[in-house]
């Protein structure tokens, strides 16, 4: 018996603490993220695209929308957007392609997307960030969508030459409905592509530097799902047009108002701090806040965004992914006013030098009470190789487990072998509703991959070690149903009685051209007791739940 116990112990200790399995084939998710032709030759062909998690049928699980790309010779007619219904059972992710019956017929070259109930009818709608005029798909409530772009005000003719890469819905003016921040990249004319550039001595595709950047847009919702362009009046238009690729909207300063962080490619990142409410105004403060550049004051090619409380001061820190021969960057939020680049302190610098990072997220994959990190990677230049550019074209995902004060690289993630790919985007959510967070990864012109988290308890009798909470504002007329801007804090005690405080933000935007899950996930170490949840709604109202049982999926509503 003792011998068996020892053997079991040894076997357990040999197992990776984070374990994933690629279940793509069994999941039924059969799709390719299209983006130009291979090998990529122009800059639109290297960005890939994003996904959106959306419960379009209000059945309680998260479905998947993929905007999808096209090709330079026919950017209006790609293979088309796809909608997949989540039919998972516990522990078994399963998706069904319902694009045809949804009424979605969208073939324009698209990149990011955003999800929100823009007309406050109780059903989430979809905004598609396009190379050309953007698109708004209204959810009719019967699992079908209609294109309302023209009447929404989001697809004005003067925007037909804009390249929107990412977008996020949030209540920017505090009136309860969802406004939109649309991130623009650059002016690219397929008929007149720029001449090649050079990187590390090799001829490569041009851009973004040398190509005119496009300014971002901010749209305010009139309350009925139609929008007015408030780019200039809000102050967003005062910022230099930049190569925007991603966005995160949440309260960075701690004043209860939403701020906007924009990841710019090869230029300074923006931090638009909200300064006024009616009308909403913002001041770009990234440089002074210390989040515009890395610690050397150098602009980086920022793409992915992850948000988490990495230093435990209950403020949202910002992690961005960047180009190869550079590092990803972690900016700690020191006091709501200033950020500091602490990438190396947390062991996130050197490990990323040979990688070109895209989507990223902080998630407690192994339910030990701290958040781990997953970054998907892949180079933009088909010529990339370790010998030629110090970085391979196809790259392994970077999985890092939080161990004490630092992150440590995980090389063995169980069945998932962390194979090299040309990855671009990813979304993170408990797709199979078993309490841990799974991942869907999108590869440039590659098949989507469903990566199931196989976290298990130490024994069948062990107590559950997770919580999933979705704040939902059900008050009539409120479009911000997912309570973007809410802050959820979990306080608990470990087996030794030591308090553990974990904080999550309901934010808008996502890992890369994608959206974050509205479900806020916590893991707890074994022996956790006395869990208390405190939810601060976007308007500052506080709710508390004490003695919360673990292993619960909670819809925390506001009536």
């Amino acid at each position: 018996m003792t011998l068996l116990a020892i053997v079991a112990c040894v076997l357990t200790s040999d197992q990776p603490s984070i374990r994933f399995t690629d279940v793509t084939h069994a999941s039924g998710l059969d799709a390719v993220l299209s983006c130009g032709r291979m090998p990529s030759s122009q800059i639109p062909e290297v960005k890939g695209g994003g996904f959106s998690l959306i419960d379009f049928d209000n059945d309680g699980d998260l479905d998947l929308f993929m905007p999808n790309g096209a090709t330079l010779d026919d950017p209006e007619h790609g293979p088309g957007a796809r909608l997949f219904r989540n039919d998972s059972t516990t522990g078994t992710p399963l998706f069904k392609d319902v694009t045809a019956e949804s009424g979605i017929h969208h073939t324009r070259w698209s990149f990011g997307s955003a999800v929100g109930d823009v007309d406050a009818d109780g059903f989430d709608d979809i905004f598609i960030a396009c190379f050309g005029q953007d698109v708004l798909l209204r959810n009719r409530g019967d699992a079908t969508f209609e294109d309302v772009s023209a009447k929404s005000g989001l697809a004005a003719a003067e925007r037909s030459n804009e390249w929107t890469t990412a977008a996020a819905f949030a209540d920017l003016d505090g009136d309860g409905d969802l406004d939109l921040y649309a991130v623009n990249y650059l002016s690219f004319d397929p008929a007149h592509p720029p001449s090649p550039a050079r990187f590390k001595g090799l001829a490569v595709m041009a851009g973004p530097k040398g190509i005119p950047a496009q300014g971002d847009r901010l749209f305010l919702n009139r309350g009925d799902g139609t929008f007015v362009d408030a780019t200039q009046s809000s102050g967003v238009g005062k910022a230099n047009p930049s190569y925007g690729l991603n966005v995160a909207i949440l309260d960075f300063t701690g004043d209860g108002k939403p701020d906007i962080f924009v990841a710019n490619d090869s230029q300074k990142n923006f931090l638009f701090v909200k300064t006024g409410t009616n009308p909403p105004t913002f001041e770009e403060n990234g440089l002074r806040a210390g989040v515009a550049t890395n610690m050397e004051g150098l602009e980086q090619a920022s793409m992915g965004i992850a948000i988490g409380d990495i230093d435990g001061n209950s403020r949202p820190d910002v992690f961005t992914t960047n180009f190869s021969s550079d590092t990803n960057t972690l900016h700690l939020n020191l006091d709501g006013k200033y950020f500091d680049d602490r990438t190396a302190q947390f062991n996130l610098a050197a490990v990323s030098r040979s990688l070109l990072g895209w989507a990223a997220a902080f998630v407690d994959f192994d339910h030990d009470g701290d958040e781990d990190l997953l970054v998907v990677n892949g180079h933009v230049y088909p010529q990339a190789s370790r010998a030629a550019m110090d970085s391979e074209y196809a790259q392994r995902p970077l999985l890092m487990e939080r161990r004490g004060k630092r992150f440590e690289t995980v090389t063995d993630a169980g069945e998932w072998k962390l194979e090299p790919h040309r990855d671009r985007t990813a979304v993170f959510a408990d797709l199979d509703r078993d309490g841990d967070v799974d991942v869907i990864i999108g590869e440039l012109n590659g098949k989507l991959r469903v990566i199931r988290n196989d976290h298990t308890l130490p024994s069948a009798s062990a107590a559950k070690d997770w919580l999933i909470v979705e704040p939902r504002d059900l008050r009539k007329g409120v479009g911000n149903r997912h309570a973007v801007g809410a802050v959820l804090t979990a306080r608990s005690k470990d087996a030794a009685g030591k308090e553990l405080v974990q904080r999550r933000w309901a934010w808008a935007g996502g890992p890369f051209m994608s959206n974050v899950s509205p479900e806020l996930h916590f893991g707890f170490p074994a022996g956790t007791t006395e869990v208390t949840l405190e939810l601060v709604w976007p308007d500052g109202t506080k709710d508390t739940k004490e003695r919360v049982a673990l292993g619960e999926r909670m819809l925390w509503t506001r009536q």
Partner: protein
Amino acid sequence: MPFTSTRRSAVLTPFRGTLGGARCAALCGLCSLLVAHGAVHGYQDIAKPSAPPTVPPTAPPVASPPATGPTGQPVLPPGTRVVPSESYADDPRLEVVRRMLGDQQYVQARVVGEAVLKEHPGLGRAEFFLGLALSKMKQYEQSRPHFEAAIKTGDPFPERKHAHHFMAWASYHLGELDRAKAEFEAHVALVGDEPDSIFALGIIAFDEDRLDEAEARFKKSIELQSGPTASKRDVAKAWARLGDISMRLDDPAKAEDQFMKSLALYPDHYEVWSKLARSRDRLGKAREAVSAREEEKKARERVGLRPTESDDIKPATLQPAPSGPQTPAPNAPLAPGSTSPAPSPTPKL
């Protein structure tokens, strides 16, 4: 092209120079180690360069390239003159390569270096210069085998012992901190307390969150460069890194002082102006921070980089400090016998 053996007549003198690239300027003084006559960077603020190696006119040509023996030592073909242990195999074109590196003509240096190596595979000095050219082109993975080969030949060309240093930086840029650390330590073991490798070990300690060690390394690097031939630029780098440590320890006042010391020595270091601005932001010195960012812009222009956009550094609610010239004297001297800059040239920012 004759393949010659050369008496080791040159005495390697540490070269101090400015750096061509932004990344390099932030991190490395590797070029301060390289050959005399402006090799690598073409800017000197050191007192005296050494004489170049000479090529004996009587040196016989080598019929075929040397092979490598089981110990990694070059095995010259039959008929090759066996040279004394102080001598090393050379090719006159390598002097051209060295000058090209000094003129920042890295692509050309690579081409010539490859041509020499094609004729004389395994020629240690050619391997070294080719590795250096590739490293300066930021092709670090490609550079490493050449540094390895240069070390392995055992050929006692003057720059050989510094191959560890350059291989270390290449490894650093590839994210391989353990290897970089080992190579820097190997370099220090070979040449003694070499300030730039000491500095680099401080960088690695900082990256690995060993702040006490990092601080000690940076201070040692400054101490080692306290003489009259000290490179102001390299001392400035170490002061800037001490400022980084202070920022990391949430002491922006101390960091401000250290960044100013750095800039007094080397005002073209635009990254440090940026750091100074951030330290002042955190101290609530908004106007002074704006002023530092103006200086960052000027420094970028001085080194040929595009300026920072003015609206990034002039927020609508703030006006630039109405002060005079902000740039410290470019050659602010060190106080005699001190590792600290003299108080007088420290700019009032």
